[in-house]
């Protein structure tokens, strides 16, 4: 039983990271109808920025906040420079853009910081949390930061005018323009926020997976699985999907013989395929119904 509880809690902790990645993916998907394959690399780059700042002697939380600001601005810049001009281009052109972005960021990080694996600090320590062997303080910190982030986002989108405008721009762009919302800037803002959310995921998971240019590859696949499971049209679903995938991954690795650590990633992919076949809109997604 203790093993089970332990695995579930650890799953919730990594699930928090998947939830952040899934949320970032869904936010951009809602704004521009494309999956951002480079979301993980953007998060990795942000994490390197925070690491570099700490190398220069900046304290953890100052580096954390500065990285958030950097990621927000960088996300907006990427949208303005690369994806705004592609807004009316066909899907495949956008896919090519995302793959290019992936390669550019990955290689740049390798060039600047090389590919050797680096230790990344945690501000929470890694002692047993509240004296319990079930979960470490870092894992508890991951959950805590994610929950705080999700609450902040909920209040932003539900109770602020700009949040309302962003939701309107994502759901019916034409009507949004007709009430005076600058939908183009709302998309840019969505990119900035998604990039900042991704950077939080990167900085929280880096102490676990260690810092290197390919650190987010697996994490992003879990994030995609979470987004698909919850429904690409539902930010709430993406978050729930993240936690579910985290727990599922851990339980499968522990209890299904032969899965172990090696087959964990294929399990995420199998999950994507099964959800797409059985319930394409995901658990919480809305089926798009068009009147003819």
């Amino acid at each position, binding site marked *: 039983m203790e093993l089970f509880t332990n695995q579930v809690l650890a799953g919730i902790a990594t699930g928090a990271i998947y939830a952040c990645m899934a949320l970032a993916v869904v936010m951009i998907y809602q704004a521009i109808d494309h999956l951002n394959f480079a979301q993980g690399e953007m998060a990795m780059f942000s994490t390197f920025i925070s690491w570099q700042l700490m190398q220069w002697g900046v304290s953890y939380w100052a580096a954390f906040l500065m990285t958030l600001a950097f990621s927000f601005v960088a996300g907006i810049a990427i949208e303005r420079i690369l994806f705004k001009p592609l807004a009316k281009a066909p899907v495949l052109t956008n896919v090519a853009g995302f793959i290019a972005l992936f390669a550019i960021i990955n290689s740049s990080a390798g060039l600047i910081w090389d590919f050797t694996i680096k230790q990344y600090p945690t501000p929470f320590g890694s002692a047993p949390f509240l004296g319990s062997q079930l979960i470490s303080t870092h894992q508890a910190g991951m959950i805590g930061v994610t929950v705080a982030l999700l609450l902040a986002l909920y209040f932003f989108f539900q109770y602020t005018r700009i949040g309302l405008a962003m939701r309107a721009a994502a*759901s*019916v762009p034409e009507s949004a*323009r*007709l*009430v005076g919302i*600058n*939908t183009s800037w709302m998309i840019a803002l969505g990119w900035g926020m998604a990039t900042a959310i991704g950077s939080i995921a990167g900085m929280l998971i880096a102490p676990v997976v260690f810092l290197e240019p390919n650190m987010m590859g697996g994490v992003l696949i879990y994030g995609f699985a979470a987004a698909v499971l919850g429904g690409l049209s539902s930010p709430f679903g993406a978050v729930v999907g993240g936690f579910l995938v985290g727990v599922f991954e851990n339980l499968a690795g522990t209890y299904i013989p032969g899965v172990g650590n090696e087959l964990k990633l294929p399990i995420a992919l199998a999950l994507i395929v099964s959800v797409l076949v059985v319930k394409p809109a995901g658990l919480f997604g809305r089926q798009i119904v068009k009147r003819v």
Partner: protein
Amino acid sequence: MTPLLNVKDLRAYYGQVQALHGLSFSLNEGSLTTLLGANGAGKTTTLRAICNMVRSTGGVEFEGKPLNNRSTESIVRFGIAHVPQGRGTFTNMTVEENLQLGAITRKDSAGIVSDIERMYAHFPVLKQRHTQQAGTLSGGEQQMLAVARALMLRPRLMLLDEPSFGLAPLVVRDLFGILGKINREDKVSILVVEQNAQLALELADQAYVIETGRIVMSGNAKDIANNEEIRKSYLGY
């Protein structure tokens, strides 16, 4: 007196296809003007061209200020509220959020709150459903919501695209009654595009008839309604 809205030699294009062929008309402050015509005549395109939602050339002036080359979202700030065809409801948001979105360019939060109450007085059904998802409303209720959302801007000019579309005759009567009241009491000028010519002519003071992207007839709404020849050849009733 400069007209509130002056449209001169408006031409609009969908890709290579020209939809408006030099359309000119004007609308005076306080007027309720209707734009009539058959399917495909260019009524919707005219409204969309005014708000710069299609590629167009020619002059559109609001109180003498040119609107061409302005983005759709900045035209709203002149006080022009556009209720598009199909109502443009934010279906996955609540009724109240839809109303707040209508006022998203306004800064006076106290005024917005009192205007929402005013809309609930105009349209009691919206008050009953204010926490409901707007997509669950009936067609008639959604049209009321669309008009209310447009009024939340406190517009000078309201553009309405086929408000009667898909509604039961009784609901249409109701809605047109409200539009007349808004025009008289709130002093909102209205330009309404309609296929239901008979009803629109009862409501409006001015009327223009469009055919294949050109104005073919204009005048006092009563005169047009009383002219049997025009009615038969252009309006089909």
